[in-house]
């Protein structure tokens, strides 16, 4: 290729790209989503069909999306921020990137502890993180509470992923909120002492290891197990595993949410509100929760069939805001306890 043709090609490609990215539409809503495209696009498409409002989507890691909204400032095109855990919504609120939204519909549909008091963020689905155990090797009556995981008989029998993951940070943050620093640190040290192996891989890997006999107990989110039960390749492994809901006589099992908030400088606040309310309608809730086997936040929408097999449970009603507040403390504590 000659130098001149190279330069021409180069310039024309850039111009094309620029023009492409500068297109815009009349009625639209811009979504920054930490939930993957696969899981959210169908709901958004349905919304566009019904309302004629175009949805523009970027997916990414929540922390980076938040950084992007912050750096874009008052020019940010973001209308809605969707995350898969409450800690990030809390952080966005702390950085004044969200605005309160007054919606009687949303307030009526979502239980109080699953939304922000002032309307900065709203839960869309509930994700539970209970104990999973191998049916043939564990007596479930010995595990009433997460506290029991520190008992000597579970030495070398627990699988859980790295503390770098937000799910474990939130779990420890919830213990911190209930039990305080000293008791929680003791608990974490006890659990770490019972690890079957140094944490590696994701939740699904812990479940596979559990099925294969590396460990007898795992801590993982239920939708991973549900997903495996519906995947022919993993069915055999998943069938040997049961869910145990801890702390049913006390605070309840640890939960988190996937949720959304309206961005502080949203250019289309009305459309953003419409989309948020759309996602809380019974049909969307059903679909949205079922697509990834999560629990709907609306109490009047049925669980997916797979989730019904896990049974109903008492969920922790700790205001989820606390998980965000205690996130950094939880991480430091896990660093000290060498939960890697």
């Amino acid at each position, binding site marked *: 290729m000659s*130098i001149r043709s*190279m330069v021409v090609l*180069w310039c024309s*490609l*850039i111009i094309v*790209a*620029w023009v*492409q*990215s*500068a297109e815009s539409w009349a009625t639209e809503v*811009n979504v920054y989503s930490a939930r*993957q*495209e*696969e899981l959210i696009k169908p709901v958004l498409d349905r919304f566009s069909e019904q309302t004629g409002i175009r949805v*523009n*989507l*970027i*997916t*990414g*890691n929540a*922390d*980076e*999306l938040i*950084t*992007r909204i912050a*750096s*874009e*400032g*008052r*020019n*940010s*095109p973001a209308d809605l921020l969707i995350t898969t855990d409450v800690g990030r919504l809390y*952080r966005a609120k702390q950085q004044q990137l969200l605005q309160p939204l007054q919606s009687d519909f949303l307030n009526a549909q979502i239980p109080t502890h699953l939304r922000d008091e002032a309307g900065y963020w709203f839960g869309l689905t509930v994700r539970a993180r209970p104990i999973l155990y191998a049916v043939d090797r564990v007596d479930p009556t010995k595990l009433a509470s997460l506290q029991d995981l520190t008992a000597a008989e579970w030495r070398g029998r627990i699988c859980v992923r790295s503390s*770098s993951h*937000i799910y474990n*940070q939130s779990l420890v943050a919830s213990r911190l909120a209930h039990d305080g620093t000293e008791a929680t640190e003791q608990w974490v040290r006890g659990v770490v002492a019972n690890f079957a192996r*140094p*944490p*590696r*891989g*994701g*939740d699904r*890997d812990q479940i*596979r*290891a559990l*099925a*294969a*006999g*590396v460990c007898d107990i795992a801590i993982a989110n239920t939708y*991973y197990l549900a*997903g495996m039960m519906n995947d022919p*390749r993993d069915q055999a*492994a998943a069938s040997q595993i049961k869910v145990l809901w801890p702390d049913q006589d006390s605070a309840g099992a640890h939960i988190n949410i996937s949720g959304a908030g309206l961005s502080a400088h949203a250019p289309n606040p009305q459309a953003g509100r419409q989309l948020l309310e759309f996602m809380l309608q019974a049909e969307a809730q059903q679909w949205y929760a079922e697509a990834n086997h999560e629990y709907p936040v609306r109490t009047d929408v049925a669980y997916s069939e797979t989730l019904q097999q896990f049974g109903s449970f008492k969920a922790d009603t700790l205001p989820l805001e606390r998980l965000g507040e205690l*996130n*950094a403390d939880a*991480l*430091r504590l896990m*660093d*000290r306890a060498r939960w*890697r």
Partner: protein
Amino acid sequence: MTERSRRFRLDPWRWLVLVPAMLLAVPVLMILLSVLDPQWDVWAHLRQTVLWSYISNSLLLAFGVGLGALFIGTGCAWLVSQYHFPGRKYLEWMLLLPLAIPAYIIAYTYTGLLDFAGPVQSQLRIWFDWRYGDYWFPEIRSLGGAIIMLALVLYPYVYMLARTAFREQASSLQEASRTLGLTPRQHFWRVALPLARPAILTGTALAMMEAFADYGTVQYFGVDTFTTGIFRTWFGLNNSLAAAQLAALLTSFVLFLLVLEQWSRRKIRYYHQGQKDTQQPRRTLTAGRKWLVFVLCCLPLLFGFVVPAVQLSLWALATWQVTLDERFMQLVWNSFSLAAMAALISVTLALVFAYARRLKRDWLVLIPVRLAAMGYAIPGTVIAIGVMLPLAFVDQRIDLLAEQWFGVRTGLLFSGTLFALLLAYSVRFLAVSLHSVEAGLHRIRPNMDQAARSLGCSPRQVLWRVHVPLLRGSVLTALLLVFVDVLKELPATLILRPFNFNTLAVRTYELASDERLADASLSALAIVLVGLLPVIILARSMDRH
């Protein structure tokens, strides 16, 4: 008067370097400047708990990968360039193939194969009636595993550069060694290897920088390194300054590495004539050795490409009905065009920078270029944020000014456009194109410049009419490397891309990060296939020469 003398000192070449280099250096500078506000509290916590494991793991990883890539790359390059053996013609370019496989993808596939619940161990348990704990099996998800995975996909950096270097050594050299009584082995150790050293070390340095910056593999394998630490500190401890300071520490390691590399060849200048007609003939081997060499050269290809590609294909066969939809071709096109644009930009910049360095050997050129090339060792996310913040700042300023002066809001001009993305790629991958262009330029004798100048060429004409034709090979190599790197690049793409703009890497990551590797396999395979295209072009152009 002073105005004029300043202009004299900052002649066009210096401007050509200073402006883009400083632009590219902004993200790196932002990271380095973070040390001005030390976060003692976080550092005390890190020092007591995890800092030492970050440091030791990162160093072990980088040096392990460097050694592995050096060994495999140089070995294969030597065999392929010196001997006749079955399949050599194909192996010569097929050895580049592992380059097309993203490190985190190879990590996922091998984990799928070798993990406790994977097919290999399951089969062993069935055959020998073992249970968990009855037998020992190497743990793939460990530091050692990460080193092997990264070395398998990074050795082509060394191989590519070393092969060119070996091929370009004139046959007269070998004849000279022989007349001086050196055996072929002595010739390799005492003549060929030292002469190829700049190319080999450059390749090794690239592999090591890539290892320092790797996030996907170490995160999945549960190895604590600087990159995982940066994310933990930033998002877990919610302290972006301390995270930037960790990144600065990582950068200083890389700086040290680069200085070491430069220092190791401080007084050596290597040149060659650029005459291809004196190329040495390949030697023939006995039948047994022929096949031994064949097997040796097949091994990296087998483990670095065939095994993961077959595994991906099997998964893709099982899932393609679900994953292949009309949006898929759009993904392929987005990835391809983006990578092509980034490669052209990055190589153009590299040519300008490398040439200016040759023309002006002073710190005014050297330092900006070195700074701009630091981005390679910094994790993509950190670069992305380093690009995003200044661009957004500029956008806000323009927006405010336009509103004050003209009453118009300009909105975001750069943020969230492909410009931001391409800038990030240039920062991240300049080192790749620069290293390979510089390695090529180093081998062109300065007296050729002088001859061209004395025949009336301007410096620019020397570049276009003498260097570019001679540099063809290196430039093609640089284009290919950046193209493939951008194709695989994930974190910066994820965070900086415009609305509704997806690439193959993004799609692969979204599925793979949810541990749905089988569903991710089709797009992973497409990355590999699109990445093969330039590899084949390169191989053909190698043949033509």
